Structure formats: C-alpha cells, structure tokens
C-alpha cells in the first residue's frame, strides 16, 4: 500500500475555511495525542482508586494504629491516581515525535492538568462515601504533590516507570507518619490548611509540570528496556 498518489486533502478539509482547517487540525492533534498517551484508558482506570476510597469510607474500613494507619487507604487511593496520571506521560514515539511535535510542550502539561483535575473531581466524589480525614483540601494537596513526584520521575527516568515516584513517596510518608515526622515535605502529615505543606506539595506539582513541559518524559538511554 502506498500513499504516493494522494496529493490533495480530503474533501471536507478542502471545503473548510483556513480557520476551520486550523481548528480541525488542532482537534485532531489533541485527540491523537490523548490517544497516544492512553488518556481515555487512564480516565477509566481512575475509577479504581475512586471505588477504593468510596468503599473504605462507606464501610468504615478501620485500620488500627495512629495517623499512618488511619490515612492509609485514602493515601493509597490518591497515590494510585497520581501513578496513573504519571504513567500517561510515557510516549511511544520517542525522538521522531520530539523532533516534529512543536505543540508537545503545550499538550504535555495540558494533559497532566486535565487528568489531575479529573482525578480530583472523581476522588472528591468518592469521598462522599463517608468522612475523609482532612477533607477535600487535603485530598487536592496530596494528589497534586504525589502527581508532581510522578511527573518528576517521568522527566528524570522514564514515563513508563513514573509510577515509582508516588509509590516511593507513599512508603516514605507511611514511615514518616509512623515516626511522627512533621516536616512539610511530608505533606500528608500536615494539617489540612497548613501553608508549609501546601507550598511543598504544590511546588512539587509545579516543578513536575515544568519538567514535563520542557523536557517531556525521558526517552531512556536503553529504550529496549523501558519502552
């Protein structure tokens, strides 16, 4: 099969005005980008953490212990959502896409923001199953911060392995909560309206967005392993 003979645009494109053509192209590019990053699948998978959060609050899954145990299930749900968002940064095309995709710096943060917003909305809806420790502000702070760790790992290591950022952060957080740490860098340990914790969490999210915008998810030096 060859496309050598195709030299004219499709009839519907030719019929549109230049502005319309541009809009169609933008929409098509966006949809292709979202599809290549498996954003629709990610939106579907976000149901998992949401159901987990809702079930834990609705049925009052009580985990004995201190703050580390009490906050565990909400933290796992937030971390799972952050991991799903982070993994969508993985691009299957590598250098060719980087060389030709001038809209990528806009699409990457836009997709991350879209998913984070969707995840927050979905988790907030899931939290209606009961009383979420810390409330929605804590949920947003934790989700944003953990997503930031995933985006940073995507930029440094690989998009496919970006899930290890939120995962590792959660393990550190559990240890810190059990040990009674109060550093703002462990923001889940801070009160809901704590400025230091919020600054750190949103700072990490912003750093992740900047990294993913400027650098994109790293194409590994050994693509055979991480692609």
């Amino acid at each position, binding site marked *: 099969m060859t496309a050598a003979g195709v030299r004219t645009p499709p009839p519907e494109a030719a019929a549109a005005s230049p502005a319309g053509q541009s809009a169609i192209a933008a929409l098509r590019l966006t949809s292709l980008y979202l599809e290549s990053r*498996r954003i629709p699948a990610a939106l579907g998978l976000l149901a998992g953490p949401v159901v987990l959060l809702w079930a834990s609050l609705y049925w009052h899954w009580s985990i004995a212990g201190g703050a580390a145990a009490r906050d565990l299930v909400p933290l796992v749900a937030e971390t799972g959502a952050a*991991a799903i968002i982070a993994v969508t940064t993985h691009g299957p095309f590598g250098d060719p896409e980087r060389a030709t995709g001038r809209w990528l710096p806009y699409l990457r943060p836009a997709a991350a923001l879209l998913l984070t917003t969707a995840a927050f909305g979905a988790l907030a809806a899931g939290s209606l199953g009961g009383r979420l420790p810390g409330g929605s502000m804590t949920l947003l702070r934790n989700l944003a911060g953990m997503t930031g760790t995933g985006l940073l790992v995507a930029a440094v290591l690989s998009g496919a392995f970006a899930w290890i950022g939120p*995962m590792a952060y959660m393990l*550190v957080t559990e240890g810190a909560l059990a040990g009674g740490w109060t550093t703002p860098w462990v923001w889940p340990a801070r009160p809901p309206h704590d400025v230091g914790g919020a600054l750190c969490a949103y700072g990490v999210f912003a750093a992740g967005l900047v990294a993913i915008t400027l650098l994109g998810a790293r194409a590994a030096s050994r693509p055979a392993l991480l692609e």
Partner: protein
Amino acid sequence: MTAAADVPVRHLPPRARRAAPLSAARLLRLELRRNAVPWILLLVAALFWFDSYRPSATTPPIWVLRTFWNMGQGHTIIDFGPFVAGVAAWMGSRDGRRGTADLVTATARPRYSAQLATWAATAVWAVGAYLAFVCVLFGVYAREGVQGSPPWWWVAVGAAAVTAFSAAGFTIGALYPSRFAAPLAAFGGFLVMTMSSQTGFSHTSGWALILPTNSNGNYQPVSGIFYPYLPDLPIARVMFLTGIAVVALGLLGLPAGAGGPLLRRGAGAITLAGVTMAGTAVGLAASARLEPHGMSIPALHDAANDRPIAYTPVCGRTAGVPVCLNPAYRSIMADVAAALRPVLGQVAGLPGAPGRVIQVGGNYSSTEGEAGQAMTISGDPLVLRMPLDAGDLPGAFGGTTTQFTDQLRLLFVHAFAGVGNGAGTPAQQAVQAALLQGAGMPFAAQPKALSGYGLPSWALTTDLPGSADGPGPATGPVYAAARRLAALSPAARHAWLASHLAALRAGRLTLAQLP
C-alpha cells in the same frame, strides 16, 4: 492480536532436544541482561534503608528485636514486593506492548517457555537483590554485635514472597499488556500487603497466620536465644507463597497463544498444583497452636526444635547474691543488678529469700500472649528464676529503663510474697506494696507500674485501686496497711516479715494482722 491458536505444534528433532538446555541458558542470560529490575534497585535500596533498617537501629541489640519490624512484620517484603510486581508486570507486558506476540509465537520455542525465561530472569534479579540487601542488613547487625541468632527462616519467607510478587506481576503484565499494568500490579501488591498487615495485627490464630506480615505468636522474645526459631509457620508460608507463584505461572500458560494443547494442559495442571499447595499451606496454618516457644504446626513440627539452646551464663553479683544471665543479655547486667539490689537487700536473711538469681526463657501461652512472665523462687538452695526476654528490655517497644526496673522489682516482690500466678490476698498485696516502697517505688507510682505494658495478667486484675482501668490513686485498705508496714523501721519490718512470712505465703494473713 495473535495468531498463535492457528500455529501447529512443532516437535523438536532429537539433536534440537539435546541443545534445548543450552538454548534455555542462553535465553535466560539474554533476559538477565535485558531486564528492567536493576533500574529500580537503587531506589529500593534507599527505601529498604529508610523503612526496614532505620526503625530497627534504635532497638536493643538482640536479633529477635532488631528484626521484629523488618522480618517479623514483613517490612522487607512491603518495601520490595510491590516494586518487583510492577517491574515484573512491565517485563510481562513487553511482547504485547510492542506488538511482537505473533513474532515470538512463530519462533522455535513456545511462547510460554520464552515468557518463563523472561520471568525467571526477573525473579533471579529480584530475589538475588533481596537476598543481597538482607545480607548487607544482617552484616550491619552482626558488626553492631547483635546477640542471639538471625531468623533465617523468615529470610526464606521473604525470598518466596518476592518470587510470588514477581510471578503475579509478570502474569498481570502478560494478560493485560498495557503501560498501566505496572502501576496496577504495584499498587495492587501494596494494597494486599497493607491489608495483610492489618489482618495480621488482629488475628492471633487461624488462617491469618499464613500472612507473611503477621508476627503474632511466631516471633517470640525467646527465639534465637533460649530456643530456636520455630520453623513451622515459615515453612507453611513458603509453601503458600510458592503456591501463589506456581498458580500465577500456570495461568500464564493457559491462553491460546501460549503453546500447543499439551503444553496448555500442563499449564492447567501446574495451576491446580499451585492452588493445592497454597490451600494446603492455609490449612496447615489454621491448625497452628501457640506452644511455649512459638507457633507449632503438628504436621510440620520437629521436636528437635523444642530443645533449648545451650549456653554458659555470665554472672555478676548484687546485694551479695549471684545473678546469672544468658550471655546475649550481658549488656544489661548492670541494669538487672541495679533493679534487684534494693529488693534483694530488704529480704536478705529472711526465710525464702533467694540465694541465687538466674535468667530463664519465658513460657508463652495463648492467654498471656507475649506479656511478661511471673518470677518463681524454688529449689534448694533457693533460686529466683527470672523470665527476662527480649520484649522486656529497655528500649524494646518504647520501654524505658525505669519501666524495666519497676517491672523487675514488682515481679520479684510478687514472687517473694508467694502469690504465684494470681493477684494474691489483700495482705500479700499490702506486703508487696510496702516492699516496693522500701525499694524506692513510691506508693503513688505503684498503680501506674501495675498497669504498665508487659506484665502478666494478674497485675491488671489485682484489687489495687485503679489498676484494672489504668493508673489510679494509691488509696484504700490495702495501701493503708502497706503504709503502716512501710512506716516501721527496716529492722522491725524485717523482724515482722521473718515471723509472719510463712502465714503470709500460705494466704492465712489478713490486712488487720499487719502491724
């Protein structure tokens, strides 16, 4: 998409069969070189240090204490397993993600065997790294002079758990070849471990003992010092985790593209074998019962493991009485001597006063759990047998030197008053309180000492005020009598005790008969 279902089964010629092991070794070597597990090892090492080593570093230098958190409660598995599951899922989804399933199916080997080679390489990396990290951890402990013996069976459980995580993760990746397979496997694994921990905390018997994070009753304070670690439960856990790994690998061979009908039937048999193995292990764990030195499973129990570990005690002296400890506890000799000196000094020369103090291993039961054990005075000459275990030490589970001292004094006077395993009569309680006051524990502090963690259950069922529901005021007829006795001069109190001790121990003395 795969066309494997249409691919005819290929039979290897004889020469090819001879070459098969060599090819398998080459395939494994290739997969080892192209595995993703090494990419996460640095991070896992950091987490291992943070979550497994760091919390243990402040515990007393006894193996069973140092490793309680990371081995007994399975934190090395929590730190390792989910990451291994995630990376294994990534490796398992490789062919599907790259769209090379048809290509692999068309090669000389069935897809199943190629997948097994990839999994084997992942497991070799993961288990090898786990063992290497544990070796370093234990090496650090050994350099710090940790006493007792390492819990080797729990290391085997950890290695089996890592293998199971790798197999389960790999199968998830193979069956759901997506970029999301890795986080799905990792977070699923973490959630399972979390629930396992939670269930383990609340279940002291039954099927939940199979969970690798459940330390109830199978990681006893006497283990590795007075008695060997009982391997019964770890053996059942290794069986269970191996069964899970076998089930996961069997499931890998069931899809149409995995190989020919014979191979798929074999995979089905493997799956059933794994289910049987895991189910048997759960049944074995459910039959476990708490013996004096740990969990025993009748079908797996070896009586040789009940024999105490021989040792030459180290001895010191306090208040003129020799005190002998297990050499593993050499470092707390001074604390023990300081704790016993004032109580031994008060009873020196009285009938029933011990002429020697020796440390013995605790005798744990399902009713007392892992709480402290009562001391006894018996033999000729009289010997105070002091069940002093790792869980009682200062620094263990947040315990302080003051609590340790109070506990030893309380247990001593309890034994001296001849009370045994009960709260004792009001007169015995009053004498006990007066002796504790004489040893430097004020009356006001005694209710709190009696409600402290780690004492036998009688301490909380005593009639002393407030002790059953936590500390209360040291008031009431018992303390009133105790105050009268304590107000006597040491010589007068000594004389009164000398003349009334027999009646006191027999329980014939009333509060009114106290001076």
